[in-house]
Each structure stands twice: as structure tokens, then as C-alpha cells.
């Protein structure tokens, strides 16, 4: 009997060929997946509550069962949040804040990335006097708490006549994004072969020619990273928005805060939830869209010429 069993074992060992078959179920996998599921539920629960609440009517919200699905789905709260919700000052909902935020966001992102890419390029390739000191200062700048500079910037903006103006806020966002973006671009450019720059110089390209025609076309991955950082950072900003703009040009986050905090009678939880989701939608979309671009960008950048 014994020898027979051994023979079977030998045959199965001899049959091993190709990829090793994967076990359908194993203890480590079970532990990993159950932990991940639990964590995912924990983080998704608030989102779930927000979505179902935003789709309920006020009488149903009043029942107080936050986890129950809406008995009667309504998009009324979403419409109100976007178009007619009132702050202490006006009653045109989030739409006003949304367009203000767009007006702040687009120039800030473009300006900060344009300037930071030039900074990073100069720091990476053109060893000028004081380059190291400048770099250290920039690094240091990334760690200064915003609050320290809040009031001095108010004074500076007032002196140059941009206080309360959307462009004042654009400049502030661009400056505060500068250290980390410059660092990002510098490191990316430093990882490129120096011989590429040398070849371009022999080919007669100057400072700008090398940046615009050689380097930027191969910088898609890092530009995408910079866009993600800036869009989410600037869109979510509340502090600078409330300090440096006037009420009629408040960004969306400030508008949201004002809607949620101004109560006439009872709190409209469904409207507040809808307003919050709408405000968070832009960073969310950026993550989903650019995530794909990001991976593609990295893959394209990885193939060195």
C-alpha cells in the first residue's frame, strides 16, 4: 500500500509544469480581504449616509433613521443646494461659489505650474550662483505654517491694490504652491540624463528652447501630478478664500460653509448633504480622470529615448 502511495506522489511531482496552480482559498487571503472590506465599509459609511440623506424629503429626514434608504427619492435638495439655498447675503446657492472657484482655480493652477516648471528646470540644470541657497529656502518654505503669513500678506495685497480681488488670491495660491511644485519639477528634471541637455545645446537650443521643445514634451507625468496637487489643494482651500476675497467672490468652500451655517428655522440636512457632495465633486472627478492619465503618463515617461 505504502509503496503505491509513494508512486502516486512521484507522478504528481513529475507532472508539475507551467505556472503553479493558485489556491482558491487560503487563510492569509481571507484575513487580508476581510480586513480590507471592513476598512472600506468604515470609510464609505459616511458617504453612504450623505448620499441617502440628500435624496430624502425633510419629513423623512426628521424620522432620524440615518442608514435607511429613502422611501421616496427626491432630487429637490440637490437643486436647492445648487441654485436657491440662502446664505446670510444671497440666495443663489452654490452656483455662485462654484464659478468663483473656477475663476480662482484655473489661473492659479496654470500660473503656479508654469512658474514652478521654470524654477525646477533652472535649479536642476543651470548651476548659477546661490542655486543651493535658493533651493534650501524653497524647501524651508514648504514647512512654514500658513497662519504665520496670513496677516502680512493682507498688508502686501492691500498695498499693491489686490486685496479682495480674485487675482490677489490667485497670486497667493501660486506662491504657496511654489516650494512643493518646484521641488517636484526639480527632482523630475534631475532624473533625466544630463546628456540630453548637452545634445540640445550642441543643436543650438537655448534656455527656453530646451525647456519648451525638449523637456516639457516629456514631462506629462509630472505635470499631471502637479495638476492633481494644485486642483485639490486650491479647490479645498477655505482659509485663504475667506481671508483674501470679498463675499461676492467667495470660493465654493466658503459659500458651502455659509449655506450650512445660516439657519432659518430648522436645519435642512438633505440640502446640506447635497451641497457638501457637490462641492467635493471636483477633486473627486480629478482623482478619477487623472488617475488613469497619471498611470499612462508614467508608462510613457518610463520609456527612455
Amino acid at each position: 500500500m505504502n509503496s503505491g502511495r509513494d508512486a502516486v506522489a512521484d507522478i504528481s511531482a513529475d507532472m508539475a509544469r507551467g505556472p503553479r496552480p493558485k489556491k482558491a482559498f487560503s487563510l492569509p487571503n481571507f484575513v487580508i480581504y476581510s480586513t480590507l472590506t471592513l476598512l472600506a465599509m468604515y470609510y464609505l459609511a459616511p458617504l453612504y449616509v450623505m448620499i441617502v440623506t440628500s435624496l430624502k424629503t425633510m419629513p423623512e429626514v426628521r424620522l432620524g433613521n440615518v442608514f435607511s434608504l429613502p422611501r421616496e427619492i427626491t432630487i429637490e435638495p440637490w437643486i436647492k443646494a445648487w441654485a436657491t439655498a440662502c446664505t446670510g447675503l444671497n440666495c443663489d446657492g452654490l452656483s455662485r461659489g462654484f464659478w468663483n472657484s473656477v475663476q480662482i482655480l484655473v489661473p492659479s493652477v496654470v500660473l503656479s505650474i508654469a512658474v514652478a516648471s521654470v524654477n525646477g528646470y533652472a535649479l536642476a540644470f543651470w548651476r548659477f550662483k546661490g542655486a543651493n541657497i535658493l533651493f534650501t529656502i524653497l524647501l524651508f518654505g514648504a514647512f512654514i505654517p500658513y497662519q504665520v503669513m496670513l496677516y502680512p500678506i493682507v498688508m502686501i495685497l492691500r498695498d499693491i491694490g489686490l486685496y479682495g480681488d480674485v487675482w490677489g488670491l490667485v497670486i497667493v495660491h501660486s506662491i504657496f504652491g511654489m516650494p512643493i511644485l518646484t521641488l517636484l519639477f526639480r527632482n523630475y528634471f534631475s532624473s533625466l540624463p544630463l546628456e540630453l541637455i548637452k545634445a540640445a545645446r550642441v543643436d543650438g537650443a537655448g534656455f527656453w528652447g530646451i525647456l519648451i521643445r525638449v523637456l516639457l514634451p516629456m514631462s506629462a507625468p509630472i505635470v499631471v501630478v502637479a495638476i492633481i496637487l494644485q486642483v485639490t489643494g486650491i479647490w479645498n482651500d477655505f482659509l485663504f478664500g475667506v481671508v483674501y476675497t470679498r463675499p461676492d467672490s467667495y470660493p465654493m468652500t466658503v459659500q458651502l460653509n455659509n449655506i450650512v451655517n445660516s439657519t432659518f428655522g430648522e436645519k435642512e440636512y438633505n440640502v446640506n448633504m447635497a451641497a457638501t457632495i457637490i462641492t467635493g465633486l471636483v477633486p473627486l472627478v480629478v482623482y478619477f480622470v487623472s488617475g488613469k492619465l497619471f498611470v499612462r503618463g508614467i508608462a510613457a515617461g518610463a520609456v527612455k529615448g
Partner: protein
Amino acid sequence: MHSVSVKDLKLNFGSVEVLQDLNIDINDGEFLVLLGSSGCGKSTLLNCIAGLLDITDGQIYIKGRNVTWEEPSQRGIGMVFQSYALYPQMSVEGNLSFGLKNAKLPAAEIATRVARAAEILQIEPLLKRKPAALSGGQRQRVAIGRALVRDVDVFLFDEPLSNLDAKLRADLRVELKQLHRQLENTMIYVTHDQVEAMTLADRIAIMRAGKIQQLDSPNEIYNRPVNKYVADFIGSPSMNFMNGKIGAKGLTIGDVTLPVDGYKAAGKLAKGNVIVGIRPEHVATGNDVRDAAYKTKVVADLLEPMGADTLVWAQFAGHELRLRMDGQNKIEEGQEIEIGLNAESMHFFDHKTEERL
């Protein structure tokens, strides 16, 4: 008129002196190879000639024109790099024409030059491709093409074949030599590979720690190395060195004395301690032993068969001696072999300065 002249060139990186008072004149149409071990300053010298580094002192002339303060693109040079350095987002055609567009040449002229370079290098079918879609050899061809379209007198190569595999390297080496014949322009070629240097060069400049040790034809460098460093650097397997003494009866190594007649000394061969160098391929074996001035027998301790020939490790007069035998010889480890030594194929170096005697 020299094609390229480097006069009293000095280059420091901060406080590190990489090149000191370097002088070299390169003739029109010459293929000059800068050869030396890694870190000796070959690329630095090439970058100085190209204008990619700001020199600390000295002058650079190209075609009789002082270009010391000129931009790389104005110097009339083309350059090929080890990593190819192709622009990854441009097609092959874009890579070739980039410099010409920067120079604002008319479109028709650009098209003509690109077509000509593509024809010479046989890369016409690749013109629309991006560098990522090319093999290493094709990329290096495009890199050479980028220098070619510039229509310049001087080509600079910085280890252009180092990233290629051995077979491709040998093929491209021959192609480079043919290209030089065809174009007849001046080429300055940096490498650490002595085979490339010996096969390609009209003259080789052997560099060590930022200084040129010897500037001569490959033949002269192989047969009359100016010092022990050069003798050791050139030749594979490398030269055997032994400590000896020149006396009245000839050369004494350990307990062996050999005649020194036939050695072509620079001056009169003075008596005293010397370093004796002899190349493994210059130790006579087989039938050649008959005519040798000195004959003896050694034991083959270790064999390294390489097909065409076999490297034998043996002991001679208290020193290790490597010798090269025909690969068809049937010998075994432990076997005695007869060898012959001739003073005319030896090299004597001063035991202190290590300069050739």
C-alpha cells in the same frame, strides 16, 4: 593648419583639478582616440572642446578660429553621446532636423541634409519612428546622424558604443571606420576600450589623471610605450613585469641572466635596477624558440584556453609569467614547455620613474 588645438587647458570642478595645462593638436581629417581608465578626464576634455563646460583657463581653437568663448552650436562640431541622448518625444526625423531648425535653415535644405544622413546611415525606413521604438544600434545610428546633418568638420564621440552588446559594438566599430573614410572629417573619440582605440585611431592619446601620457600611433604605443602605465594599459592580456638589474653580463632577473643585445634603448642603457616588461605574445614558444637569444623551460601551472590561443600561467626566475601559445597546441597543466626570450621584444623601465629606458 590644425583642425582642433587645445592650448594650456585647465579645468577645475570647484577645488578639484581635473585637467591641468593640457595641450593637444589634432590634424585635419585625423581620427584621434582619447583612451584612459574611467574618471581620468576624457569626457571632461571632450566637453571642453565642445563648449559644454566652462573652462578654467586656456584656449580652444577649431579650424584656426579661437572658439574659447563660443556656444557649442557655433563651434562647428557635432557630438554623439554614450546614452544616445535622443529627444524621446520627437521622431527620428525630428531628432535629425532639430538642430537645423534651430539654426533657421530653409526647409528644403533641411530635407536634403536629413535625407543624405539617413541614406549614409541606412536609417531611411526609421525616419517616422520614435526613439523608444528603435533598438540600441539603431538609436546610436540616429545619434550619429544628428551629428552628420550638421555638416561640420569635427565630430566628437563620447563612448558611443559602450551601451551596446559585444557583437553590435564590433559591427558599428567597422561602420564608424568606413564612415570616417567616406567623410574624411576630424573625429575625436573617447573610449576606455583599448580594442576600439587600436582599431579606429590614427593616433591615440593615453590619459591618466587629467594628463596625456603618450600621444602616438597605435603601433608606436604598442611597441614603444613611454612608461610602465601605458605599457600595462595597452595589450590584452597585459604585459608581464619583473624586477631586474642591468649589469656587465646583461640583464639579471632573480638567478637568471640574459643578453640585452638588440634592445633599442632611448639613450645608452645604463647599469642598475630596471623594471622589465614582456608581453605574453612575445614569449617565444614552439618552433620560434630555436631562434631565441635565451632559452629555458617553464612549467604550465594554469591554462586559460580562448580558442584561437591559450594563455599559460607559469613561474620564471621568481616571477609570474603569462605567455600566449597557439590554441591548437595540445598542452596540459603541469607540463613543461620550452620558451625563448628576446631583448628586442622587451621593454625596460626605470625602476623609480617608471619611464622607458
